[in-house]
């Protein structure tokens, strides 16, 4: 876990990590969220709808933006203020996702950073992109 202090944060600072999507993640997310839509839970149903298999919940992949803030940018003392996400392409079980973000704006008065973030699949296709605002708590 990163532990950035305010003076260490700068425009251009970035972070990247990878995630392998598993069927267990979808099952756990369904249990957590209560969203049991068959497009996400029933492989045959998803195929009958024209997809190659169960679709990963958009909010599951978006949860990795939470990890980006809480573990990387800014890490330990970060507090998520807001996330605007655009979904570009569905993710599937077995996809290896690369989650990356870069600081694009610093508000010194209230110690808030703005991060442009993106999730790519193993083929380099954009699964989603996001604008994230996060504060750095006093410590």
């Amino acid at each position, binding site marked *: 876990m990163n532990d950035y202090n305010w003076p260490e944060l700068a425009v251009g600072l970035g972070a990247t990590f990878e995630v392998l999507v598993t069927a267990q993640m979808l099952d756990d997310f369904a249990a957590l969220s209560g969203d049991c839509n068959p497009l996400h839970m029933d492989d045959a149903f998803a195929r009958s709808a024209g997809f190659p298999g169960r679709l990963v919940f958009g909010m599951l992949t978006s949860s990795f933006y939470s990890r980006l803030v809480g573990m990387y940018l800014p890490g330990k003392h970060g507090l998520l203020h*807001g996330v605007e996400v655009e979904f570009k392409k569905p993710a599937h079980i077995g996809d290896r996702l690369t989650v990356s973000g870069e600081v694009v704006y610093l*508000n*010194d*008065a*209230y110690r808030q950073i703005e991060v442009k973030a993106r999730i790519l699949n193993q083929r380099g296709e954009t699964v989603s992109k996001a604008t994230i605002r996060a504060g750095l708590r006093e410590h």
Partner: protein
Amino acid sequence: MHSAEIIAELQPIFADILDLPDLQLFAATTAADVEGWDSLAHINLVVAIEKRYKVKFALGELQELKNVGDMANLIIKKLAA
């Protein structure tokens, strides 16, 4: 620029961030007058204003503001600097 011109420019910024399309801003308007103008919205307003006018505010400057008119005057001061 005059304070009234700045306030007119601030109006769509506030309306968008506070999600109040019919919001009417006046020099005397304060956070207490506007539904949804809470601490997080305030940060979003300040960031949007910084980007709009390409200025940076110090915390001390922001803490002295009492209403929208004070903010407009601070912007004028920053733009003249």
